[in-house]
């Protein structure tokens, strides 16, 4: 039985160095990653945290090979997903002519766990925002329609 694994590939008009910076610099991640600032010295074995006032993710850096490969463990620190073990995220950055191929692989996930469901919805938004910011210099306005629609339905 295969374990759940989430793989997402995109192509971005940027350089491997700029993409590496976008994934590892807190001032930059804050602009596309639901407001999360990432903090780490990015040495293998070091801790990192992604935090906003009401949510955080933390873990340990497993691979740091700029600007080609970055991997870390992923612990959502949420009571929601608490019995689940920390999963693993790997970013592969490969130049392809004038663009860069980014592959995000999130694995070591628990079968039927909430983390798998959450990250499957989250990564496409985060990566869409990352790509837009690198290509246009502007943030995508992530404004989920659910709240407004709910009000309409409730009214």
């Amino acid at each position, binding site marked *: 039985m295969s374990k759940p694994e989430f793989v997402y590939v995109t*192509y971005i*008009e940027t350089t491997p160095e700029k993409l590496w910076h976008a994934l590892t610099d807190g001032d930059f991640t804050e602009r596309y990653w639901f407001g999360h600032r990432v903090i780490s010295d990015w040495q293998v074995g070091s801790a990192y945290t992604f935090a906003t006032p009401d949510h955080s993710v933390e873990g340990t850096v497993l691979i740091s090979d700029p600007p080609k490969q970055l991997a870390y463990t992923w612990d959502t620190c949420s009571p929601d997903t608490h019995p689940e073990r920390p999963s693993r995220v790997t970013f592969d950055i490969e130049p392809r002519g004038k663009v860069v191929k980014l592959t995000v692989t999130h694995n070591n996930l628990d079968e039927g766990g909430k983390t798998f469901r959450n990250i499957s919805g989250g990564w496409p938004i985060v990566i869409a925002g990352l*790509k837009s910011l690198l*290509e*246009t210099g502007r943030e995508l306005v992530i404004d989920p*329609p659910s709240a407004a629609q709910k009000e309409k339905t409730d009214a």
Partner: protein
Amino acid sequence: MPKPEFIYVTYIETTPEKLWQALTDGDFTERYWFGVRLRSDWKPGSTFEMVRTDGSVSDAGKVVECDPPRRLAYTFVNLSEKFKDDLPALATFVIEPYGKLVKLTLTHEGFADGSKFFQGISKGWPAILSGLKSLLETGQPLEIPYAALKFEEK
């Protein structure tokens, strides 16, 4: 054993109408789909074809669903010899407003077990849809080298 299925979600700063046009207008698809023009009158049951720059047809199928600017579905299969054992799988595009963005969900399903075509489309769609997003947001196509997809054939 789960059937092979490919799902890709992305968010684009555009309108549902512009995204619909980008998915159905051959002049537009040519700019981000590795030169491929889609050809159809987009009526359910009508023929659907992918036309290369030299005029030859690479893939063909039928329109299954057409509800602008919300849902588009068509079957297609690649016409080359190496995919002759493949079934015409169904690609469904769902377009949903998402605040100031549009959410695009592509589901491609109905492949034969062990389908070679499935491996091909799994590499192709991320490149095509990345190019589509860039073109709609920046006005410029992405220059992804076709060789970058590393299809097995040559």
